[in-house]
């Protein structure tokens, strides 16, 4: 271990107990914008949030690349001492990401659903109970990515642009998209911000798809503590410079390697 990383390691031990003494920045998926604005208040203790496009987990390599670029950029700012990731494993898109100067703090979570539900344990329990659930949140609703009327409109426009001369194929692709959600029968809405508009939208999606609507109680503690500390090992992984994020298939979800 070289001198500088040793110093950062000590810094991390301090910030574990009192993160407010260190200067840290945040890289977050845009899906969390509503929740972070609500939790941040008027004067958040972190210095800046960089949001990255939501939905990148569909292309894990692109997600990894986008986060790595944002991370390098932040690390060039000498005043930043640590970086908080508002991400989970996200389809393994976070695996392999390695800081070069600043320790990374990341919640032990599969994805945004684990984070909004408060823990990967609760996420897994809910999935075991309702494996047919498709999760919605205010951010996911805003992104118009969730199954429902807007997704259909968006996809029709996208495929018409791509295969405009073959409307039969476009119709078939839209039908196939619906088929890819056929195993879901429940729109499960998780919210930490009392966003009635998003909740109503989720209900309308459930109605148009012929699915049940289920509201799940969100738990803000994991997200709150990710932003404010304490960063205990049970709920958070700290990745030291030169090390990288790896998948852990036990209840820890993530590990450092």
């Amino acid at each position: 271990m070289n001198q500088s990383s040793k110093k950062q390691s000590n810094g991390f031990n301090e910030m574990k107990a009192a993160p407010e003494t260190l200067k840290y920045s945040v890289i977050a998926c845009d899906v969390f914008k509503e929740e972070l604005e609500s939790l941040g208040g008027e004067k958040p203790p972190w210095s800046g949030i960089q949001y990255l496009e939501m939905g990148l987990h569909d292309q894990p390599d692109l997600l990894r690349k986008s986060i790595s670029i944002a991370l390098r950029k932040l690390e060039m700012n000498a005043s930043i001492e640590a970086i908080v990731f508002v991400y989970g494993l996200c389809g393994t898109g976070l695996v392999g990401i390695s800081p070069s100067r600043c320790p990374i703090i990341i919640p032990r979570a599969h994805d945004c659903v684990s984070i909004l539900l408060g823990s990967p344990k609760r996420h897994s329990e809910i999935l075991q109970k309702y494996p047919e659930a498709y999760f919605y949140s205010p951010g996911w609703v805003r992104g118009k990515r969730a199954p429902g009327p807007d997704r259909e409109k968006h996809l029709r426009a996208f495929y018409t642009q791509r295969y405009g001369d073959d409307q039969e194929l476009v119709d078939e692709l839209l039908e196939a998209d619906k088929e890819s959600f056929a195993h879901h029968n429940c729109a499960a809405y998780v919210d930490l911000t009392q966003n009635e508009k998003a909740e109503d939208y989720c209900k309308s999606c459930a109605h148009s798809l012929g699915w049940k609507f289920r509201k799940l109680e969100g738990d803000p503690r994991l997200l709150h503590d990710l932003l404010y500390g304490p960063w205990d090992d049970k709920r958070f992984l700290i990745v030291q410079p030169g090390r990288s994020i790896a998948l852990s298939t036990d209840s820890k979800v993530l590990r450092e390697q």
Partner: protein
Amino acid sequence: MNDPLQQLIEAIKVGNRKIAATATQTALDSGSSGKEVLGALSEGMDDVGKRFKANEIFVPEVLVAARAMKKSMELLEPILVKSGIKPEHTLVIGTVKGDLHDIGKNLVAMMMKGANFNVIDLGTNLPAQTILDAAIEHKADLVGLSALLTTTMPAMRETVALMNKEPHPFKIIVGGAPITQDFADDIGADGFAIDAASTVELARTLVTSS
């Protein structure tokens, strides 16, 4: 483009069911063997898989291509039966407990069927014991386990662990978006395939080596 096999490859690539069916029929009528038609289907789907991986196309396009392949296989199956080509090996396949995502599993099942395996598709969200019981009942040579979610990877681990508790005659192949070779090795699976086309190659290797 007069070669019906080439037409079939192109029809699979763009997911055109009608052309896939007519090209299959023309190919068979003009003397192409079942194996050659299967080769064309595999080539078409291989291209679809590669473009999907490169994010050039998305799930609906893969599903439409799979439908076109299915249409072709409906015409091909009676020919294969008639020619006396019987499957020598059996694959029991399904998604692990908690995972209902079956697009990948269905693609693998279809490609394996096309590669002349007897495929027993158990469906989705399967308890470990159900898969093990089916593997024994059907005298499987291979068991294929699929998981799309990182939340269900522990269920894949548990399923493989249950199977490996006692000696068994089958090989276990695992796959799905978050699965890696390291994970497959770690949980004691015999093989990992990154996509449907490579599952066929892996399956052939595993059954010949056993």
